């Protein structure tokens, strides 16, 4: 990667802008350092890409999710109608929603492959235990965000899948029934369930995932990729 000064060397206007910003933010040094930091490469193969692919897909999910929220209306008598509206009436709505749905499926796959790669490469070993733990938290959060998103179309598949899922959450002894009651927002799967799943799906879980990804990246940047077995 070239240094910033090299990039703007023969562009006087751009160089003035960069220098003006650097005088105020003192940012050129850190960016140059990050872009030119050496990484231990001999053991890096295409299988190391799946963390980055997962990160990219999460970005796609955030973007398309924001776009879907422009038209989606949570509620037992509006959810399905608004999805139908997105699919049939909104310009390219079918595309945005399908990207969101397919990327969600892919994301589960890439996250899982990423975890398998780290496991089989032994990359969870010291000094990277914390990153492994954060990764496991991210896996759970990803499954949760997929589960809460699955209910939102409020079609037969969504309804019965969530019925089964919340029921499974209710099976452990002692705490189980309370967890199920909490997830459903009552005795039954109703509009209250949609609303709390929607809040979890688009507010709570994305923020948690973003924070966790931040920690994940910070650690891998600091520790570097593992040398493999």
């Amino acid at each position: 990667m070239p240094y910033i000064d090299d990039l703007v060397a023969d562009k006087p206007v751009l160089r003035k802008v960069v220098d003006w910003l650097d005088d105020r933010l003192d940012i050129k040094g850190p960016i140059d350092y990050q872009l030119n930091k050496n990484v231990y490469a001999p053991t890096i193969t295409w299988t190391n890409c799946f963390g980055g692919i997962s990160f990219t897909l999460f970005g796609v999910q955030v973007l398309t999710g924001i776009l879907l929220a422009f038209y989606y209306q949570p509620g037992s008598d509006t959810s399905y109608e608004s999805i139908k509206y997105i699919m049939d009436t909104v310009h390219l709505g079918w595309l945005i929603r399908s990207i969101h749905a397919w990327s969600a499926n892919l994301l589960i796959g890439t996250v899982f492959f990423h975890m398998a790669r780290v496991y089989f490469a032994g990359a969870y070993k010291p000094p990277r235990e914390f990153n492994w733990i954060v990764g496991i938290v991210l896996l759970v959060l990803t499954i949760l965000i997929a589960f809460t998103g699955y209910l939102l179309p409020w079609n037969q598949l969504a309804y019965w899948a969530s019925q089964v899922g919340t029921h499974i959450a209710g099976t452990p002894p002692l705490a189980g029934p309370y967890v199920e009651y909490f997830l459903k927002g009552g005795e039954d799967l109703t509009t209250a369930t949609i609303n709390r799943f929607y809040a979890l799906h688009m507010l709570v879980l994305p923020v948690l995932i973003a924070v966790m990804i931040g920690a994940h990246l910070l650690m891998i940047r600091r520790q570097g990729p593992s040398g493999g077995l």
Partner: protein
Amino acid sequence: MSDAVSHGPEDAFPLVPRQRFLQQLIGVFATIGTIAGIVPIVTYIWPPKSNTEKAEESFQPITDDAGKPITLSEVNASKTPVLGVLTQGEKQTPVAVIPNAINPGWTKPAPKVVSRVCPHLGCTVAFRPDEHKADDGESFPDGFWQCPCHRSQFPPDGGKVLGGPAPRPMFVFTDVAVSNNDITVKGVAS
């Protein structure tokens, strides 16, 4: 700042014309790609025209299966809803005309016209003269509406849900007119 310009190999080996050309080509493709990404998002966010704006703006007659218009006298002589089809350009909607005789609360001069498309999942609701007791316990001696797909039930005038998964009553056309004894309708069922 010129002292900083000597880190990479770029200075030692100045770009030859074809490298410069390829760099510019990448720039062109990047610009096209960016535009191709932004345009769909903008058109997506832009509010689409609602269905009512695209609705058929002229009155169309309700016909039977053979294409013959349904007349007011035919409707008034019936004890059950009269089934018909509303043709608007390419689009055909199954509808029913409710005779005023079985729709006592109706005050408008033209009879009530409802869509036979089930508000649940879009099957065509059937009128069942042989059924007399709805799921909510009400009785209808001359029958009532029942969807063949998931058993949504409606009274003969379609004005409420008696049972089944339907989220709302049958759609009612607001613009109904009688011209030359034919029953005509304007607007699109939602």
